[in-house]
């Protein structure tokens, strides 16, 4: 069985986490803004 360096595994996991975070941000529902007068 081929074994990977812990550093490579850690880097890969970090990259996956960042990608997941980015996907979460991208999937945030667009908000609705309604014009109002200053009050």
């Amino acid at each position, binding site marked *: 069985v081929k074994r990977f360096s812990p550093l490579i595994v850690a880097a890969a996991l970090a990259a996956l986490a960042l990608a997941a975070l980015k996907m979460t941000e991208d999937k945030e529902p667009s908000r609705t803004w*309604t014009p*109002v007068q*200053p009050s």
Partner: protein
Amino acid sequence: VKIGVLVTGDAAVRAAHSLAAHPAVDVVVIGPARSKSFPVVPDADGCDYLVGTGDQAPEKAREHGVPLIWDGERLERGVTVYGASPQGLTLAMASREPDPQLVAVAHPALRAGGNHRARFPSPVGRIGVADTTYAGQRLATGKSPNSYAACLAVGVRRNVTIIDHGAFMSGISLAAGVAVANSDGRPVWDDALDYLHAATDMGLVMAEEG
């Protein structure tokens, strides 16, 4: 009201056009300058106020002997209104909210911030902001990733925003300072409601989330 415009940059020129749309305001440009839209005059005789931007504007106003509406963040001699900027607009907007938890502004001319991220309306979106102070007021600031700018006040009860083209917002932020001017030197958020009404009358749109 007669307003003299010190040609100190793009925001001042844009402010001149926003002021000229007001029926009760006469606009002149203080020379030396060239203008296709406004009379260019050699001095500020007869002007009630001057508008200008940048560090040199207060000194120029003192030379003319006419009070200045300014985008700077502090009171200086010769300045009658300060904070007439997107930062001041943000503080004015937030001052009308009962419970602002986050007061933030994004503008293409501001520096990128790294303290935390704030979620502005599209097309600015989520960006890094720095926790700073403006005229002693807490204000998170960040660099817009595009030409748009946004003011944001996040409260428990509601979120409010003003978003527009950055240069357009800068011009109107300066021009709307006229609504706050009187004999005292003060920031725009001291008379926030009149200032915000002037800014929205000149074309900015305030919006509430929901």
